[in-house]
């Protein structure tokens, strides 16, 4: 029996609630009890993916797409209606049309007078703002991705390091970025460095925590097996613990990136131009609500897209996840 037989579906399942919940899976070893899938919410686990997949097959990709589109259309229609009927002042809730216009104008040029044309917003096209923010997230989260697993490793494997620093990790995790951005600016200036720090501090704890959980979750026998094959402590670390932990680390990175997006406006409050968060904030201050909403939508879409990308790369990096 190969992995191809895993996560399969019956052509005519007498589907009921149970069917949607939890995948029915066959196991490579017959007497292997069906273990509950790991609770990690992030990596595509065969069970869940399989169950999604089954459902998706059942509904049909097309129907699913249609449904999503339908919801979107209904949403836009309601929005449009609310604004068209002037239930809310356009200044507060601009119509979908004017948000779209703001979006288009922010990505192009407008004539302000016969002699002058202004391009983008705040001297940058919106996509340039987005790229600037992506770069910052890239650096901040990037450093966290490098350091987080190392620290997580140390904390999980050296008792006193954990004892000493775990409280601070939990502490750090719940601090409001808006509260400490001022300190970061004082220490690191208003330039990109303080933004990197903020994004790093947002991204770091989830990755460390995920790594610690990953390391702690490594099966004892996995390690024993390596030791009995002559592995040194270092070899156990690099050949067994590290790869075992990878799925959790990737899950942690996904949480971290999501969290970094939620702090991008805070990071770009000061000297945040170019930057999509900075643009959202500045335009909000200037009561350019349509542009603010356009920015927020762009941030949301970029976040979803980036997450999908990481998920995909993760599944390439950890092809065995959920299978072994």
């Amino acid at each position, binding site marked *: *029996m190969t992995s191809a*037989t895993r996560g*399969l579906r*019956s052509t005519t399942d007498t589907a009921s609630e149970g069917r949607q919940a939890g995948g029915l899976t066959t196991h490579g070893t017959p007497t292997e009890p069906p273990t509950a899938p790991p609770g990690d919410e992030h990596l595509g686990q065969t069970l869940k993916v399989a169950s999604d997949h089954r459902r998706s097959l059942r509904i049909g990709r097309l129907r699913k797409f249609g449904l999503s589109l339908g919801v979107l259309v209904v949403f836009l229609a309601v929005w449009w209606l609310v604004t068209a009927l002037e239930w809310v002042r356009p200044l507060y809730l601009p119509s979908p049309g004017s948000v779209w216009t703001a979006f288009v104008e922010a990505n192009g040029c407008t004539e302000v007078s016969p002699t002058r044309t202004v391009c983008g917003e705040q001297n940058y096209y919106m996509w340039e703002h987005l790229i600037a923010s992506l770069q910052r997230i890239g650096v901040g989260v990037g450093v966290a991705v490098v350091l987080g697993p190392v620290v997580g490793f140390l904390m999980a494997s050296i008792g006193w390091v954990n004892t000493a620093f775990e409280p601070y990790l939990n502490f750090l995790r719940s601090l409001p970025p808006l509260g400490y951005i001022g300190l970061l600016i004082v220490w690191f200036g208003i330039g990109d460095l303080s933004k990197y720090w903020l994004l790093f501090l947002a991204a770091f704890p989830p990755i460390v925590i995920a790594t610690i959980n990953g390391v702690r979750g490594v099966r004892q026998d996995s390690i024993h097996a390596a030791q009995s094959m002559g592995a040194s402590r270092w070899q156990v670390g690099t050949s067994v613990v590290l790869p075992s932990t990878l799925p959790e680390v990737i899950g942690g990175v996904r949480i971290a990136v999501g969290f970094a997006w939620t702090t991008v406006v805070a990071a770009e409050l000061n000297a945040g131009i170019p930057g999509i968060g900075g643009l959202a904030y500045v335009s909000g201050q200037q009561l350019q609500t349509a542009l603010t909403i356009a920015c927020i939508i762009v941030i949301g879409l970029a976040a979803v897209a980036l997450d999908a990308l990481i998920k995909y790369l993760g599944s390439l990096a950890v092809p065995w996840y959920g299978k072994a």
Partner: protein
Amino acid sequence: MSFTLENVSQRYITDSGEVIHALADTSLEVPAGEFVCVVGPSGCGKTTLLRILAGFLEPTGGIASANGQPITRPSWERGVVFQQANLYPWLTVRKNVELGLKFRGIDASTRRETAEQCLALVGLGGFEDKKTYELSGGMQQRTQIARVLANDPEIILMDEPFGALDALTRERLQMDLLTIARERKKTIFFITHSVEEAVFLGDRVLVMSPRPGRVVLDEPVRISAQYGRMLDGKELRSTPEFVALRDKISDTIYEGQAP
């Protein structure tokens, strides 16, 4: 309660669209009160068959029926014992055993009484108020059996119920099960990997072929009948009839597997 399969077959479709023919046309008739054991290589469709009988799965072909009624969904009249005990850890042992009765709206005092009886039957009197996770694997499995018994289904479907137990616990539970089956006259459909277990427990042993599964041997077991009395485990296993039957079944399985 009897059950029958008429030309039942099952195909699965994988994610990649591949069709897996898990169960070939299978017909079977099991009279009420019979203890049927099913053996066969891994992946031959034993569990599939059980899921169809339980009503978890509608076969892609043919009709499965219990007492002449087509099986369309799970029912308390067909109790299922899984390899894993599947107890609910948020309930005490007693509450677990009462659960089926509660689902069916039986009043509290009857529930309590029945649960106690059934727990006593499987040798767990006194453990009523324990947490399920405080029990050993064997005790959990017995609790599961008590839970199914409390519901008093006429058919009990068991999927390798003793597979995860150690040899000793396993033997004990086999004896318990035999006693219960005889006393309560249940119709039992019992899947196992162990040929010995099948021959020891069953009134009848079915051997299935590799995928697509079909019944390739349908053998009555009459050793105790031949000896005119119940034989205990050790005695039974030493009889030449037992050895012969066991070997015959093993051979059949091997043949099916030959490369």
